[in-house]
């Protein structure tokens, strides 16, 4: 088994998806977590001054979604064949869009401005694309692509597991997504991870 080390803040953020893929696949890895105060010294060691970074045999890979895709492919969670893998990428990128476009909303300090940004984000991206995911789950028997769980499903889980803390109603109109989230969440490895995972922040 390769010696994997994943470097990230002691937060969920963009590191949580790679972590969850490792756990779901039952692949051991060193979950290196550091506090924001340690970051300035560590930043220079990272190829693009960013984390998460996957360290494998001394080689470094950055970009959470490149890491996620790599681990998923190594451990049978990427889809069968190139076309399926592309479809998985497509759905995973949809979740990534949620995170990227949701960020400025989340970071906005002014409550009035935040409300405006939230409405725009919800109406232009979140709601219509969640509907697409919901329809695909209904059409494809409860997982997004092919016949089994892929990392796109795990990406949905990671996103909604985090989002439901502040927005408990987010899945109220998406029963299939709620079922997927519940299914991934009841995986033994994921359950075990959640028991010991540092609290949401």
């Amino acid at each position: 088994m390769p010696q994997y080390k994943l470097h990230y803040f002691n937060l969920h953020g963009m590191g949580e998806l790679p972590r969850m893929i490792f756990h779901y696949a039952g692949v051991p890895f060193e979950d290196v977590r550091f506090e924001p105060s340690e970051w300035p010294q560590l930043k220079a060691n990272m190829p693009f001054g960013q984390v998460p970074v996957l360290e494998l045999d001394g080689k470094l890979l950055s970009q959470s979604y490149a890491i996620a895709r790599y681990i998923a492919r190594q451990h049978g969670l990427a889809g069968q064949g190139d076309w399926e893998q592309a479809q998985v990428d497509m759905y995973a990128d949809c979740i990534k869009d949620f995170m990227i476009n949701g960020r400025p909303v989340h970071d906005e300090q002014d409550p009035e401005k935040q409300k405006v940004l939230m409405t725009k984000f919800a109406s232009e991206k979140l709601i219509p694309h969640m509907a697409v995911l919901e329809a695909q789950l209904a059409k494809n028997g409860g997982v997004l692509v092919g016949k089994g769980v892929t990392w796109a499903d795990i990406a949905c889980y990671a996103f909604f597991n985090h989002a439901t803390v502040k927005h408990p109603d987010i899945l109220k109109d998406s029963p299939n997504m709620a079922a997927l989230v519940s299914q991934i969440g009841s995986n033994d490895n994921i359950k075990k991870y959640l028991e010991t995972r540092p609290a949401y922040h």
Partner: protein
Amino acid sequence: MLIETFYRQIGSEIVTNKSFKFSMAVYKLHYFDNPRRGHAELSRLILSQAGVPFEDVRFPHSEWPNMKPTTPFGQVPILEVNGQMLAQSNAIARYLARQHGLAGKDDWEQAQTDMYIENINDLLNAVAVPFVEKDPAKQKEMYGKFMTETIAFHVVAVEKQLKKNNTGYLVGDRLTAADLAYYALFSDFIEVKFGGAFLKDAPLLKSLLVRVRTSPNVKKWIDFRNSKYYPDGNE
């Protein structure tokens, strides 16, 4: 007429062809006619570099309301392959790169290629913020900050990786979609937005961009593209 059935493996998929004429996947890439590069250009570069013919569909914005509901996510670009649709510009680019030998020669190289494509995606998202700013003074300030902070930092980091890799290319020892992705964005920065001064301390990156630009199939595409779609000389 003889009808032969034969099987051809594409990746790990099996395609049945019932024809005496060998038939390849037919690619249709759909995007707006404006912007003329935008999120479709990387895929166009990949297909061109690979020497793969494709239908480069560019439709006017007035057609979009009719087209939108037919797309998986109400967005373009869309890649249509033998009647099936793939959305998300990077998923498309990655798929085409993998099908046509431009994604790196093993899984780790493919991951690095992914990483560089994601880097470019981040920069595109970052530059989009000043791009949509309406106040010209504020926009100028935001672009300035983007160049002196975000881009300056990134150029140093990429130059370091190029030096470390020591092949003249970002990944492995040959041209990949990673190099094409950097070319697509940085040529836009140089030619359309900012000029080339920001590369003055990055000779390896500078020469990589030239290497891509003058690579025969890329050159052929760019010359064709410029004469057909940018007759006024602009982006």
